[in-house]
């Protein structure tokens, strides 16, 4: 047999067909082919192909170009009404298919909408500054004794910020912000806690914040000047006309020299007030560290570059600048760089951010997840439409016979899918509104960062997005329909295009179901762990205890007031709250070996604390009550401390009475308590804990409440607080709530995981349904013949669903061990105190998913198995 000759490149041929006039095409193709085969002989295959491609491009000339058929476009436009009409009929006729398509697309699109809204929000940050493209933040990285920090800090030294304008060319101006200005602002009759920064006089020059009253050039120039935002001025004075008034902050008088508009929502800088940075020259004149080159922790510098200066060209001069300044400190190198203002919200996750940022990683993960979801939904649509082609080939065949062009068939099917995706948009908009508050409340920082508010622009974005999705999903079915051969279709000889790629679709089903099972099982496992941790036995009782943040108030004063209430059973004081992730360490010296010392964690409590929280004593007793301001003499330790320092041979009873040196003081051990969770239950740190005595400078008041009506009691407590401290809002939380909040991250993963699993399962189920309907429809004749020959419904059911069951089993076999190995071998061993995996949650998810799948398979196959064979065979 003759060897088959190689062909010219397909794509070039197609390109030729696309642009060339019909009357010239055949001749031209022939010529090119002739040359190609001639070159093939003389010059070899590669060269021949190359010349072919070259020639195809050479023939791309004015006289060969096909003139776009305007008439055709016009007809398509006129036909739009007809397309919409037929699409509507189709949608209504196939309610099941339309329904699941709209549902599937809608569900995944709602996540897409969330993503778009988030992107719109995030990318509108800081764009209100007129010079935003020229503003950069000076960021720094510390290298000490050869140890380089892995990432940059958003902060830089005050020295760098103040001297960069003189030392580096290309800098037009620098705005400095320094933390530490937040605090209570006092008027004669009133006190208000406000958040703010120290800022230098260039602030209003660099940024475009609106100063309503006052002179932007001088408002922050001199020491002890203060700029208030409108809302804080209103809160303080009841009016925004506050220019020239004086207020007191930290025993210093400040003059209000400016009133500015509140910072916009989409500003990464948020504050209630600004104090002039020059005040620090007076306040901290004795602080030698303030202007040190390596003190890079507290100041954010925003540089306004000259017009036309690039960040890349600035780097060299910055390196030079830091090299010359490095000499002022020992063994330290501070590397400086610039970060564009526009990238603060979306760029690298730097340490020491001035406020919460979203960061690149989170954004990317979210975008990737969304794209995967949307693509699989689009794929399902494609899959289902192609599966339906069986019933629609005749329609297309007749259309073509009557005279429809290819482009019109494509147009019709695209319009249909766009209509579906627009309907899905309505659904997804509803879902979007529904999940928006849940998404925002997942993490407290998200709530501050994003608004996700529907605006006209956003709705337009959504519309564009859904049309795009419609076109994307409809493209492949549309093209495959348009290729149908009219004659064959009408003659019913058509081998459906859906017959191709069966194994691919099987693979996809397995893949989708594996992902679904993994997602749901992982969610269940995390949920189980979450429940386990929030109900974890911390080693002490937290029941009905309300922790009130004192915010600087006298604990004894409040305690006396609270004790009046009948609902209050007991009150104690503590420095911090155990078990929710508060830590504080103190140096303790080993009584056996004075050279050995180590940090132990501690909490300062009063004599009521241990009893109220039901700490169990191994030996010894509680603290003896003392007067306020008496010397600290006693300490209570846990068993782990005895073990660490080997005190009294680890015999608790012998340890009582021993004297240990803590924080430079000699303290006698009066009691030993059982180990308890000091930090968080899922955290290993915080094993050795001591309890110190303090009865007057606590941060928290722990109130044990016995009440039928908790909200009413809470309100009572709040009114007492209001009486004592009208300035600060009442901050109190039940212990159980605080523990839950401590595991907010885990809760968020459960929520996100649950939501994603539902989506993935929905999409997989829809895909499976399409497959089932398609294959059973294909085999309907076979089923009928079998039935006529005496097959029972049950055996038919088994016959039809066997294939799918195998697919589902394979998915489960892939998914369950993967999930198990991931959690049991990789993730859980890293989490202390985690609950070991149980069979229950491993199987439950898969069971639910499989049940759902079986339900669908069963219902569809039963429908086919029950059809009257006479009806089917009658069609022949």
């Amino acid at each position, binding site marked *: 047999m003759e060897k088959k000759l190689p062909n010219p490149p397909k794509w070039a041929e197609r390109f030729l067909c696309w642009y060339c006039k019909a009357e010239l095409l055949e*001749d*031209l*193709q*022939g*010529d090119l082919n002739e040359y190609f085969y001639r070159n093939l002989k003389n010059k070899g295959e590669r060269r021949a192909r190359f010349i072919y491609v070259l020639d195809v491009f050479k023939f791309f000339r004015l006289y060969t170009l096909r003139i776009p058929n305007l008439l055709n476009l016009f007809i398509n436009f006129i036909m739009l009404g007809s397309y919409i009409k037929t699409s509507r009929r189709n949608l209504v006729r196939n309610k099941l298919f339309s329904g699941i398509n709209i549902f599937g697309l809608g569900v995944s699109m709602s996540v897409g909408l969330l993503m778009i809204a988030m992107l719109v929000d995030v990318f509108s940050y800081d764009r209100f500054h007129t010079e935003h493209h020229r503003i950069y933040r000076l960021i720094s990285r510390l290298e000490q004794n050869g140890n380089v920090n892995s990432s940059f800090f958003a902060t830089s030294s005050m020295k760098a910020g103040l001297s960069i304008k003189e030392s580096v060319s290309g800098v037009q101006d620098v705005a400095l912000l320094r933390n530490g200005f937040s605090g209570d602002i006092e008027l004669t009759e009133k006190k208000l806690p406000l958040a703010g920064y120290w800022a230098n006089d260039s602030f209003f020059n660099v940024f475009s914040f609106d100063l309503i009253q006052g002179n932007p050039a001088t408002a922050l120039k001199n020491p002890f000047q203060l700029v208030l935002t409108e809302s804080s001025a209103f809160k303080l004075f009841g009016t925004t006309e506050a220019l020239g008034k004086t207020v007191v902050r930290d025993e210093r008088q400040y003059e209000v020299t400016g009133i500015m508009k509140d910072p916009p929502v989409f500003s990464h800088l948020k504050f209630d007030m600004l104090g002039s940075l020059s005040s620090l020259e007076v306040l901290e004149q004795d602080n030698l560290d303030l202007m040190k080159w390596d003190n890079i922790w507290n100041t954010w510098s925003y540089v306004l570059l000259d017009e036309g200066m690039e960040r890349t060209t600035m780097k060299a001069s910055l390196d030079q600048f830091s090299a010359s300044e490095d000499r002022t400190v020992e063994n330290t190198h501070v590397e400086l760089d610039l970060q564009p203002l526009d990238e603060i919200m979306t760029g690298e996750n730097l340490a020491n951010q001035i406020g919460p940022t979203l960061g690149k990683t989170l954004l990317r993960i979210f975008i990737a997840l969304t794209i995967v979801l949307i693509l699989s939904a689009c794929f399902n649509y494609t899959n289902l439409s192609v599966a339906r082609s069986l019933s629609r080939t005749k329609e297309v065949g007749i259309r073509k016979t009557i005279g429809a062009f290819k482009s019109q068939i494509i147009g019709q099917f695209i319009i249909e899918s766009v209509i579906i995706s627009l309907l899905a948009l309505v659904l997804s908009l509803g879902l979007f509104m529904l999940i928006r508050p849940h998404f925002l409340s997942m993490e407290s920082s998200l709530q501050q960062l994003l608004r996700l508010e529907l605006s006209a622009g956003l709705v337009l974005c959504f519309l564009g997005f859904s049309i795009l999705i419609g076109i994307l999903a409809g493209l492949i079915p549309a093209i495959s329909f348009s290729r149908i051969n009219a004659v064959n279709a009408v003659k019913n000889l058509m081998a459906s295009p859906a017959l191709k790629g069966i194994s691919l679709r099987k693979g996809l089903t397995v893949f989708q179901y594996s992902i679904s099972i993994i997602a749901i099982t992982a969610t269940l496992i995390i949920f189980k762990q979450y429940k386990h941790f929030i109900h974890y036995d911390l080693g002490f009782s937290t029941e009905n205890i309300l922790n009130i943040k004192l915010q600087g108030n006298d604990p004894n004063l409040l305690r006396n007031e609270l004790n009046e209430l009948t609902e209050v059973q007991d009150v104690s004081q503590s420095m911090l709250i155990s078990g929710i992730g508060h830590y504080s360490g103190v140096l303790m010296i080993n009584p056996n070996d004075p050279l050995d010392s180590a940090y132990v964690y501690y909490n300062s409590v009063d004599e009521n604390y241990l009893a109220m929280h039901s700490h169990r004593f191994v030996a010894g007793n509680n603290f003896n009550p003392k007067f306020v301001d008496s010397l600290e003499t006693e300490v209570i330790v846990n068993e782990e401390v005895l073990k660490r320092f080997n005190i009294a041979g680890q015999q608790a009873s012998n340890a009582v009475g021993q004297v240990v040196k803590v924080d430079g003081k000699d303290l006698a051990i009066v009691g030993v308590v059982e180990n308890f969770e000091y930090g968080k239950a899922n955290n290993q740190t915080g094993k050795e804990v001591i309890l110190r005595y303090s009865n007057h400078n606590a941060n928290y008041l722990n109130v044990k409440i016995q009440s039928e009506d908790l909200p009413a009691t809470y309100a009572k407590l709040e009114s007492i607080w209001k009486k004592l401290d009208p300035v600060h809002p009442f901050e109190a939380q039940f212990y159980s709530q605080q523990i839950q909040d401590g595991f907010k991250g885990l809760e968020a993963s459960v929520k996100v995981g649950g939501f994603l699993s539902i989506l993935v399962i929905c999409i997989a189920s829809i895909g499976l349904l399409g497959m089932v309907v398609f294959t059973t429809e294909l085999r309907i004749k076979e089923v009928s013949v079998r039935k006529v020959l005496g097959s029972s419904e049950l055996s038919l059911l088994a016959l039809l669903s066997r294939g799918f069951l195998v697919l589902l089993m394979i998915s489960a076999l892939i998914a369950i061990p993967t999930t198990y190995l991931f959690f049991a071998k990789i993730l859980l061993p890293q989490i202390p105190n985690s609950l070991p995996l149980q069979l229950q949650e491993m199987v439950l998810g898969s069971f639910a998913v499989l049940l759902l799948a079986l339900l669908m398979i069963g219902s569809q196959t039963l429908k086919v198995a029950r059809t009257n064979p006479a009806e089917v065979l009658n069609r022949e």
Partner: protein
Amino acid sequence: MKGTNLGEFEELVLLTIALLMEDAYSVAICDELERVTGRSAKLGVVHAVLNRLEEKEMVESRLGEATKTRGGKRKRFYQISNTGKAALIRSKEMREELWNRIPSLTLKGI
């Protein structure tokens, strides 16, 4: 109708078509031109010229039978139309007249 004047290359192509008689299609024309003139005739150029000549109605074309060598594509055969013939003859006459008027001495010694 466009001008009836012939460019040099157009004239060559027309003559080749006339020469090839029944076999005049693009690739054959190219080959023949290459053989006669000794310079390479690019298909793209010849194709464009043929197209222009057809627009000027100097040639007529018809599609032939499909052959295997061209990947199943038919050839387009060209024939000189009466206008084409007239244009060729006129051009030849014009040249001859000019040749005749040149004194024989002028071109000697080239």
